[in-house]
């Protein structure tokens, strides 16, 4: 049973690695900056999945905080990138 779980987990990690490689191609090649932003966002989500698979492989629950943390930082980073691309400033000053 344990062997099956390990094997399936490793297969899933290989698939996620392929997915990250394809997204890296989009980050490097992407014609416009929003393409790169979306690709980086998707890479972060794949990293969350990878951290979950590593947690399964190691049989630990200590990585759950890391997964939530990656999600939070990814969200904030994507919002900041989107605001920069849209408005040119990240934190509005409201006084001019």
């Amino acid at each position, binding site marked *: 049973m344990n062997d099956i779980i390990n094997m399936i987990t490793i297969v899933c990690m290989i698939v996620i690695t392929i997915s990250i490689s394809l997204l890296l191609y989009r980050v490097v090649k992407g014609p416009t900056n929003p393409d790169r932003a979306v690709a980086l966002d998707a890479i972060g989500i794949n990293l969350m999945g990878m951290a979950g698979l590593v947690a399964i492989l190691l049989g630990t629950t200590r990585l759950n905080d890391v997964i939530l943390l990656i999600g939070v930082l990814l969200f904030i980073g994507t919002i900041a990138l989107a605001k920069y691309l849209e408005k040119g400033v990240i934190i*509005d000053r409201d006084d001019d």
Partner: protein
Amino acid sequence: MVKTNDLILKTMTVLIAFILFGFAVNLFFAGHNEPGGGFIGGLMTAAAIVLMYMAYGERAVNKVLPVNYRTMIAIGLIIAIATGVGSFLFGQPFLSQTFDYYHVPVFGEVELATALLFDLGVYLTVIGVTMTIVLTISSDR
């Protein structure tokens, strides 16, 4: 620049910043026995405050959170030093820590350690430093 309407971002920020503050408090109190602690808890709180700044702008958040973050650095350092100096009162070396078990109404038997007070100092210092850096960079002219 055309005036945009960030209704989705603002509504989402109300919910997500609340969850982030809860996660930060969880990380802060989990630091003794599990991954977490003052540093990452402070960074999460700062991330939540930065999210509020990004969604609502500088003036609105200054009205909601009228905190001077430089003072917060000083308070955090003073708390950290005070927990170290406090061990002199009991004739112990600098930064000696102790703990004991208490009965708290809701949570039952809990272990309260003075390391938590040191962590509180780290927490406030990390929030103060991060927010000082972010706000200083964002408000230059």
